[in-house]
């Protein structure tokens, strides 16, 4: 018990004695991790938004004008039996016209001049959740397009592909930036621990001479690294949360992009905890690197 207390107290004493270095290390780590966090936050929100948009994607299957109603029913059954299909809604020519008149009341006179209703009957198809990826949608559309009675299949393919591509780029950037800045955090904490080790090398020599094992000598420095990493990570989350709320408030104030603020969300508590743990891990890695670099004899 006293040994544990000693090790924790040593780590705390290290940080207290090298107060300035400790504060600088926590702050720089916090800002570094906050930069990683920004990318992560943007990525998480875009993925969330993309997920919601993909759930809303409806595929319009327009039918040929003279397609017999018996065949329409057969096609509907066929679509409903498809394992990739989640829902099917039939819209007759009359319903299509009615909807057009409701949505574009000023333009309805355009159709009156044509005499016959030019709008085709259609099926509004929603794919099952497992088949909503752009690739799955594309292959399904290609298959349906060849079916008898289908005039055209329409969906926002380009838009969805673009969004998926954008998310992919952000994901890559987040990984790249995250890797680089995490390495920077490891270096910052590693240097802090290195300074602490150099400042206390006499003490380390004394501990070695009285029979302290390498692990016993190293534990306070590992603890210090882990605590610095965790504090830096927690502070970075604080900075991010503050910036996030400020951004959301600004959007509300300007009135632009209304509704987007409700779609935006901060990291859930579980992710916050995981990020603090990750910071702790980075700090620990920093101490390990530093202790290994400083050599076997001294620590």
């Amino acid at each position: 018990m006293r040994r544990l207390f000693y090790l924790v107290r040593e780590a705390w004493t290290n940080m207290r004695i090298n107060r300035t270095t400790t504060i600088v290390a926590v702050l720089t780590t916090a800002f570094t991790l906050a930069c990683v966090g920004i990318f992560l936050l943007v990525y998480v929100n875009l993925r969330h938004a993309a997920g919601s948009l993909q759930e809303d994607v409806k595929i319009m299957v327009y039918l040929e004008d003279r397609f017999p109603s018996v065949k329409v029913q057969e096609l509907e059954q066929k679509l409903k039996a498809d394992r990739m299909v989640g829902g099917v809604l039939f819209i007759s020519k009359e319903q299509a016209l009615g909807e057009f008149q409701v949505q574009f009341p000023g333009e309805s006179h355009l159709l009156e001049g044509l005499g016959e209703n030019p709008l085709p009957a259609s099926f509004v198809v929603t794919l099952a959740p497992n088949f909503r990826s752009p690739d799955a949608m594309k292959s399904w559309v290609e298959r349906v397009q060849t079916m008898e009675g289908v005039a055209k299949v329409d969906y926002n393919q380009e838009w969805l592909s673009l969004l998926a591509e954008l998310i992919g780029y952000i994901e890559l950037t987040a990984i790249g930036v995250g890797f680089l800045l995490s390495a920077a955090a490891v270096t910052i904490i590693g240097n802090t621990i290195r300074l602490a080790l150099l400042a206390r090398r006499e003490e380390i020599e004394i501990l070695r001479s009285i029979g302290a094992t390498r692990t016993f000598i190293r534990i306070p420095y590992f603890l210090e690294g882990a605590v610095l990493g965790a504090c830096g990570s927690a502070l970075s989350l604080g900075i991010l949360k503050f910036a996030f709320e400020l951004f959301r408030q600004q959007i509300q104030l300007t009135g632009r992009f209304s509704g987007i603020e409700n779609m935006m969300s901060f990291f859930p508590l579980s992710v916050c905890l995981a990020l603090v743990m990750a910071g702790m891990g980075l700090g620990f890695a920093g101490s390990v690197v530093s202790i290994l670099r400083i050599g076997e004899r001294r620590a």
Partner: protein
Amino acid sequence: MDAIIQLIHVSKWHDRRAALSDITLEIEKGEFVLLMGSSGAGKSTLLRMLIGEEQPDEGQIFVHGKNVTRLRPTEIPYLRRKVGAVFQDFRLLPKKSVFDNVALPLIVQGVSEKDIRRKVTEALRAVGVDHKNDQSPNSLSTGEQQRVCIARAIVNGPVVLLADEPTGNLDPERTREIIELFKLINARGTTVVVATHDPHVLNQVNRRVITLVQGVLLSERRIGQGIGA
């Protein structure tokens, strides 16, 4: 008698200069040995080898039945727990109290709180500084600091106590007190090896004296008992 320390044809070079040259000697359990020699004679090198801080270039060293030259790095701390060390510069931690300094070897070994309190109090009492246990080492005189260093070396009951120039920073009166303390520790059964170049120490110890000159074992004798080598 059993040899607690044994050196067999030990040699060590520092920058192509022989720090120790073909040393063979035995120290029996319970002996008090003075290791004499001027600066650079190889006394400190020999003591450092006994606690595994340095390895010989040739020969073998046995301490308490363990071949020090063959110990793995992870085994060396356990050897040091059996061999107490006293240094000329005391090597006390200034930011810790006298009590905490002496308790350190016990904390390292994971001794219980209750035993730490008892053993540290006993060790401080044995060296006569038990009334200073809350003070910082820097507030003590050099003689008292050396006593605290000795208390730290004996607190976990080592089988051997090594002292490297323990009186180097002390006046003749304090030197006498410290040597008397070593004699007392030796009388309780601990093997004591004191490395010194101080003739005052020689005058006070009627024991075995090993003299080193430029890394060579020059003589081995027992003062007052007429045994020469």
